[in-house]
C-alpha cells in the first residue's frame, strides 16, 4: 500500500542518512545494510546479524 511504502521508505531513508553521518560506523557495513534493503530482507534478524558479522572488522 502506498502509505506503508511512503512512511517505511521515509524512515529507512532517514535511518541510512543518520548512519552515513556517523563517523564511527564502518562504510562497508553501511553498504551491506543498503544491499539488504534492496533485497527487502531487513525484516530478518538472521540476515542482519550475518551482515553485521561480515561487515565488522576485528578492530570495529
Amino acid at each position: 500500500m502506498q502509505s506503508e511504502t511512503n512512511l517505511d521508505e521515509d524512515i529507512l531513508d532517514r535511518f541510512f542518512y543518520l548512519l552515513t553521518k556517523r563517523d564511527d560506523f564502518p562504510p562497508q557495513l553501511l553498504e551491506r545494510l543498503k544491499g539488504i534493503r534492496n533485497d527487502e530482507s531487513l525484516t530478518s534478524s538472521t540476515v542482519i546479524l550475518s551482515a553485521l558479522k561480515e561487515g565488522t572488522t576485528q578492530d570495529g
Partner: protein
Amino acid sequence: MADLRIQRLDVRNYRGISLSRSLLFDGKSILLFGENGTGKSSFIDALEKLLTGGVSTLDARGQGISSQTYGPHIRSRLEACEIAISFGESASLDLKSAVSASAHTVQEYAQAARQPVYILRRGQILAFIESQPRDRYDLLRPYLSLQEIERVETAFGGALNQSQVEADAAKSLVAQHSGELRRFLDLRGTTGELSEDPILEALNARLRFAGRSELHRLDQIPKSIGLLNEDLSKFGDISKPAALSAVVTALGEFEEALRSLDLSQALASISNLRNREMIEVQVIYERVLQEGADWIEREKRTECPLCEQEMKRFSPDEVIKRARARVEEKKELLDLRQQLTSQLNSLLGSIASVIRTAERARTLLDKIPQQLRQGAESALANIALRLNNLATDLRKPIAQLNIGTLESTIAEFKGENEVTSAIRRTIGVVQKELDSLPSPAVAQTLLELRELLTRVKASWEELVPSQSALIRAENITSQARIVHNTFQQARKEIISELFEDISDDVDRLYHELHVHHDSGDRRHATHRNLRLELREAVQRSVNLRGDFYEVADVDPRGYYSDAHLDTLGISIFLALRLWYRRQHPSFNLMVLDDVVSSVDSRHAVQLAQLLLKEFASFQILITTHDRIWFEHLRDIQARCGVAQNFVNKTIYKWTIDEGPDLREPTDEESRLRELLADGQPYEMASVAGRLLEHILQEMRYSLRLPVPAKPGELYEIGDLWSPFYREIKRNFPRLYSEGQSILDALDISWPLRNWIGAHFNRWAVNVSRDVAKEFAHAVVKLFELLYCPNCRRFVAPSTTPLGQIACRCGDKIYAALGKEAIPLSVRTELVTKSAGALKEAKLSTDLHIEWKKSEGKRER
C-alpha cells in the same frame, strides 16, 4: 482514474435491521437523520462489518461481547446476515464473496478500508484525548500503518540480542581458558584479561628451576618440548612412564580443580542479598527511579512517569532529588546484585574448566592399562554430568536459586565419596606403578615439565582466538547497538515530523471550528498551537499539548471545557482522516456517527461548514439525531453549492420486526395516487395514514409542536394531529385559509389512521370505499399544500418576515397575516441588507428563539 463511490448499501438481519433495507447513496454523501434508537448506527455497524470484518464498538467491549455473536439481528443468525455495497458497473463487495475476486479498484478500496480509521462515533470522540500517552500511540497505529517498519525494528532488536548472546558465550570461553592457565601456573591472584607476559614469567620460573632455557615468546613452547623430548629419549622408552605421569598429573589437577571450586562466596552473596532484600522489604526498581528522574529532568515534565498524573506533593525538582537519593541509598543492594552476578559468571567459567579437566583425564586414562584405572573413568563421567547440572542450575534467575540444594551439591563434591575415593585410588595405583619403573627422578621432572608445557600450549592456543573472538563479538554487538538505536532515532524523527504535519491540521481545523471565538490569525488565538508530540524519553508514546491564553505548552485536558475537548477530538479525527487520504488518495469514505450531539449549535454549524468545504471530495455518511443540525446542514449544503452532492434521508421510526423506516414521502404519495384509482379501501386508508403520519412527523420538527414526550418518540397521528391543527389555525392563518377544507376534514377523519392504519383491527376491515377514498384524497391534498417537489422540503416558518411559512426554495409560500409573501430572491436581498442582523435566512437557534418570542407576543 475516478474514485470509487458507494452507490448503495444493502443490509438485512444485522444489528437493528431485520427486513432488507437500503441506503441509496447514488455516489453522493448521505445525511441521515433519525431519533435515538431508530437504527442509524446499525447501517454504520453493517458497513464497518463488511469493510473491516468487525464492529469496533462491539469487539472492544470484551466480556464475551463481539460482532460475531451480537452483530446479527436479535432474531437472526450470522449466516442469515446480508450486507453488500455496490459501486455501480457490477463492482461490489458483500459478506460472502472474497475481496480477492473483486476488481482491482475495489480491492484497493477494501484494503484501505481494512482499518476503521474513517469512522468516528460519538463515544470515540474523547477516546484519543482521554487516553494515556502510550495508548494514544496505539490508537494512531492504524493510521500510520507501521506494521512493516516495526518488523524491521524487531529484526534489528533481534540481531542485537543475538549478538549479545554470542558475546556472552565468547566471554565465558575466555574465562574458561584463562582459568585453566591460572590454575596450571598458579596465577590465581591475577584478574582481568590474561596476557602472554605473566604466563611467560610463570613458565620461565619453572624452566629456570629445572635448569632449562627460558622462553621469550609462547610460540617457542614446541621448540622447548622438542628439546625436552631429546633429553628424555636418553632415558630409553618413556612412553609408559609418560602416560602414567600424565594420568597422575591430570587426576591431581582434576582433584585440585574440584577442590578449588568455591561456591561459598556466591552462596554467601546470595544469602546476603536475600537478607538485604528482606530488610528492604520493598523491591527497589532502580532503573525506574533512575530513568524516571532522567525523564523528568530532561523533558522538564511535571507528570509522574508511571501514572502520568500531575506531581502534586513534591515539585519535579524535589522528585528528581528524592529518586536519586533513593537510588544512592540502595546502592549497596545494587552492588550486591552486581557482585553476585559477577561471582556466578566466574563460577560458571570455573565449572566449565573442571569439566574440561575431567574430560582430559578420561582421555589420558585410555592410554594406560585397564587394571590401573580403578573405575576412575566412570567416576569422572559421573562428576562431569553433575557439574553440568550444577551449571544449569546456576544459570537460573537469582530468585530461583536454592541455596540448600547448591550447598548439598558442593558438599558432595568436596567430601569423601565414591567418586573422590575412586580418583584417589587410581592416583595411588598409577603412582605406585610409575614409582616401580626404573626411571630416574630427573626424567620424572622432565616429564612433568613437558606435560605442563603441553597443557599451557593447548590452553593458550585456545585462549588467543577466544580473546579475538570476544573482541570481535563485542565489536559486532556495538555496531548492532548503533544500528538499533539509529533506527529508533530515525523512526522517532520521521514520526515526529509526521505529527508536526498532522498537528498543523489539528490546530487549523480546531481554529476553523472556533473562528467565532478567535477570528483572524490562529497564531494569536486563545486556544492555539495544538499538537501531538512523540515523547522524548519514552518510546511509542504520544503527548497532547497546546497553548492556552498566555500559558504555553499545557495539556488541553487541564483547561478546556468538555465541549472544546469534544471539538478537539473531532479536529484530531478529521486531521488524521486528511492525512490518511493523502496516503490513499482514491479512498474517500468518511463516516460520522452522531458526533455533534455534545457540541453547541454554533460549533455544530461551524463543523457543518467545515465538512462541506474542506471535505467536499469525500463521500461522507453523517448521522445525527439533532433535527436542528440536520436542517442547518441541509441549508449549508445549498449555500456551499454542494446540495447536489448530498442525499438527505430521514428515518421516521424503528420497530424490532422491520428495522428503520426509510420510506420517502413522495413514494408514499405516488402509491396513494395509484390506490385512489383502483385500490382496496383498507390498503388505501393504510397508505394514506402512513403518509399523514409522515407529514405530521415533519411538521412536528418544523413547527416545534408541543407534543407530550413518549418512550422512543414513537408518535402517531393521535399524538400529533391536534397540536398541528391548533398551530396552523392559530399562527399561520394564510396557510389555514388556503387548506381549510382539507384541514377541517382531516380533523374529523384522522381517527381512521388509528383504526385502519398500521394497527389492524376487525372494525377497520369494514371501512367503506367512499370513506377511505375521502380520507386518502384529503391526505394527498395536505401533502400538496405542505410539500414542495422542487426543493423536496416541507414548508417551515420563515424569519423574514416572521409569521411567513415557506419551503426552502420559496415555490411554496404562505404570507404572514397582513403581509405580502416575500419570495426567495427578495429574501436573499433582505438578508444581505440586514448585514448579519438576521444572519442567514435560516432557522438557527437564535432566530428560532426570536421567532418563538414573537409568537408569544402575538398570542398575548
